[in-house]
């Protein structure tokens, strides 16, 4: 028979979002918190991110991924948070029963009073972008290569081409160069960079790795192992121009072509999803459409800074604690946050005006295309602009954020929606 263990809050995923949520729930007064992760050690993908660049906002320090994770791991330990590692979650129900499986306890059911989903995201695969050609060994996602190199200590190739200018791809270009491999080029189908500009400078320019914008891979060649790829230019409609085809010999193709929030479990519970972010629709407490099911981190939408992931995880954990402490009103008033082109999405999609009494609300957005000139991001309540922020430029690879201060409480309370616009600054 299956035994049932009970916890106040169960957090799925021990990456930066999950750990922050767990620590925050505990600090906000819940008795027992359990974090479940499929990996052997806590820390999530941070453990394979041995490069620096983490923690500038939170700690004012430039830390490598594992060091950043370690700070939260230590805090989780001191808060006596239970960790259940090397464990897969098979199922979650809307009444908070979590079915897990691992080697030591087998398949078991755990009961929570609230749940925080923090499963992160996965990488888009070759099939999803449908690259034609053969199916040899040597086509990997950048994250798979990253784990092989940084965690397993194994080199999955000698001569690389990278498709996609996502951050992991660029960071791997540098890492592989440092390991003595050759990175022939990074190829990006869009006319602009997909990742952070700082990664372009530090990972490609500094290592003389060329970036080919408006180019893609049209074919993979090789029977047993990748032998070459066919690189082609695309026109402004992303249509392949066959006459520009160039065969680039290589033994490995890395894909850094986008991340997808990992929401199989979320969908199974029946949470309402946002088709654009690929994550759950949330309010600024990070509660989903199902009361007591909270979400945090890249499972909501793909962030570009871990510091924001931790901060939002902290928020989710805090409200998960409130939820079980019975000082929670699931019928609290929520108003929608609406974005206009060129903004592609905003998280949270709804805000609870009364929470402004306690703390400011940060809205995170992405644009659909780059605007390489000063712009103003403005927030309107019922046709009236209440605040704005100037950016020297906005790009799809870099999140745009704006904070609604506590001082806007009365204005927000009185309105039916908030609306965000981006306009060229004259």
């Amino acid at each position, binding site marked *: 028979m299956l035994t049932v263990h009970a916890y106040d809050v169960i957090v799925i995923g021990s990456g930066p979002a999950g750990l922050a949520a767990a620590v925050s729930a505990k600090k906000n007064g819940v008795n027992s918190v359990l974090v479940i992760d499929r990996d052997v050690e806590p820390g999530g993908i941070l453990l394979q991110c041995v490069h620096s660049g983490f923690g500038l906002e939170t700690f004012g320090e430039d830390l490598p991924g594992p060091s950043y994770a370690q700070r939260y791991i230590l805090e989780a330990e001191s808060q006596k948070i239970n960790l259940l590692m090397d464990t897969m979650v098979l199922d979650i129900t809307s009444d908070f029963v979590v079915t897990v499986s691992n*080697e030591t306890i087998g*398949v078991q059911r755990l009961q929570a009073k609230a749940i925080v989903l923090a499963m992160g995201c*996965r990488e888009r695969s070759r*099939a999803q972008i449908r690259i034609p*050609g053969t199916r040899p060994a040597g086509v990997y996602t950048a994250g798979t290569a990253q784990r092989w190199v940084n965690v397993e*200590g*194994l080199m999955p190739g000698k001569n690389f081409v990278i498709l996609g200018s996502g951050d992991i791809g660029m960071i791997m270009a540098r890492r592989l160069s440092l*390991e003595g491999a050759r990175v022939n080029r990074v190829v990006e189908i869009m006319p602009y960079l997909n990742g952070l500009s700082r990664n372009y400078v530090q990972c490609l320019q500094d290592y003389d790795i060329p970036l080919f914008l408006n180019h893609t891979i049209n074919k993979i060649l090789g029977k047993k192992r990748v032998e070459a790829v066919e690189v082609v230019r695309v026109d402004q409609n992303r249509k392949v121009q066959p006459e520009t085809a160039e065969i680039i010999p290589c033994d490995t193709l890395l894909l850094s072509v986008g991340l997808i929030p990992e929401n199989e479990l979320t969908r199974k519970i029946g949470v309402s999803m946002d088709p654009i972010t690929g994550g759950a629709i949330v309010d600024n407490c990070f509660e989903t459409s199902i009361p007591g099911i909270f979400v945090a981190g890249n499972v909501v939408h793909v962030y570009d800074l871990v510091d924001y992931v931790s901060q939002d995880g902290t928020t989710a954990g805090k409200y998960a604690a409130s939820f079980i402490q019975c000082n929670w009103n699931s019928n609290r008033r929520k108003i929608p946050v609406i974005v206009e082109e060129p903004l592609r999405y905003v998280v949270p999609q709804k805000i609870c005006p009364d929470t402004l009494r306690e703390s400011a609300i940060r809205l995170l957005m992405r644009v659909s295309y780059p605007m390489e000139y000063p712009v103003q991001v403005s927030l309107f309540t019922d046709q009236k602009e209440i605040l704005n922020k100037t950016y020297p430029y906005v790009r799809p690879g870099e999140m745009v954020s704006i904070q609604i201060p506590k001082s806007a409480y009365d204005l927000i309370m009185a309105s039916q929606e908030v609306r965000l616009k981006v306009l060229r600054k004259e």
Partner: protein
Amino acid sequence: MDSYDVVIIGAGVVGCLTARFLSRYQLRILVIEKESDVGAGTSSANSALIHAGYDPLPGTLKAALNVRGNEMWDQLADELDFDFERCGDYVAAIGEDEFQQLQILKRQGEQNGVPGLKILSVDEIRKRIPNINPEVSGALFAPTAGICDTFAVTIAAAENAQMNGVMFRFDTCFESFLVEKHRIVGIRTDRGDIRCQWVINAAGLYADEVMHQAGSHPEFMIHPRRGEYCVFDPACFQIDTVLFPVPSEKGKGVLFFKTTHGNTIVGPTSEFVDCKEDKAVSVTGLRYLEEQMQRLIPGADLRWTIASFSGLRASGNAICTNSDVDYSGDFLIESDKTVKGLIHCAGIESPGLSASPAIAERICLLLEQSGFEMIEKPYWNPRRKRRPCFRHLTNEERNELIAQDPRYGRIVCRCEMVTEGEIAAEIHAPIPARTYDAIKRRTWCGTGRCQGGFDMIRVVEILTRELNLSSEKISKNGPGSEFIFSETKNQRSGQC
């Protein structure tokens, strides 16, 4: 030198089923295979359909063996313990013009001896397949058609053959025949000579080349015909049946079919290619699928794809031996006319899978007719059990399994819920899985949405450990497809 009674060239579904059928006799049998695993060619990339038999031209060997083969699948699935579902299939006529074709197909099927064929009205087919093209004018329903997993059938047959004494040798490529006085005495391979009395040519795409080595049928050629497929994410689209368009001179057309794993697949294309290894997916192929699939299910979208693949059909030009039928493209299954001790089965394209048990049966018959002494074993075991599959068990059953071997509690492939226990079991199975693809095909690990993004590293690690090899030796599908080149600098200098 090794010596056998029978050597079978090719460990595809035909070779393995033949080995399994022959294993009931007191014979020393060896199967040789140029790839690292069974079913590595056409048998792992096809539509996995057991056709009812209304499609082949009456009087052909294809028609006879399709219908006979179809009858054999229930018993085969029961004995070899693989998934087989007689779900039936539909041929949908779109527009009034195509409706006539259904009658012709039905008549043809009845001539071939296909039972239960029925023409369905517009209302009936719409009721059964609600998202079908609204211009549908009717459909032919064939209740005896079914689905299986071709690789699962192949490995099941191979394992049962192995249990009954058949030997397998992988990474071994046929080169030529050893002939004395017009009689086969053995074969030469890239790994040495093998003595034998009989050779069964089940070399699939290469059956013509093997045949030509014996000096037979110089006019017979296999021209590989590529079929490309897209596998859909079950969360995006599922169809609970097999749905064909009306066939044309180009073949059976682009169909939608469910698989035993719960995915829906669309395909195949049909394109002659020059190279017998050209299993590439092409831009034109994908475009063709995109266009063709709209005919049956308007709005079907290739963005639902989680994997695409292609396979090669071994299309031959054998003239039908029945002189009443004008058809070239039939199966060629016969004892060699110039040398003794050689049986060919060539040109085994669709409905080759459906016919495969009947082909194996026919090969046994040809051997017997040749006067070869075949004595049945007193203790032949026709049954083989599949190993446990975590995904299909109840939680209670899972815990029983985990109590015996804790590795069944550790999930390595999240999308398809495959455990380390299952992977280890396949590595130590009668026909061991020694590569990533071998594990993928046996367990279905890495076939889900993330396409190996999570499991690949872990499977390589498990293979390294279980086979006691270095990581550099672990491959995707045999020599030349290794994943890892070396250790990193730190690892090499021992700093880690």
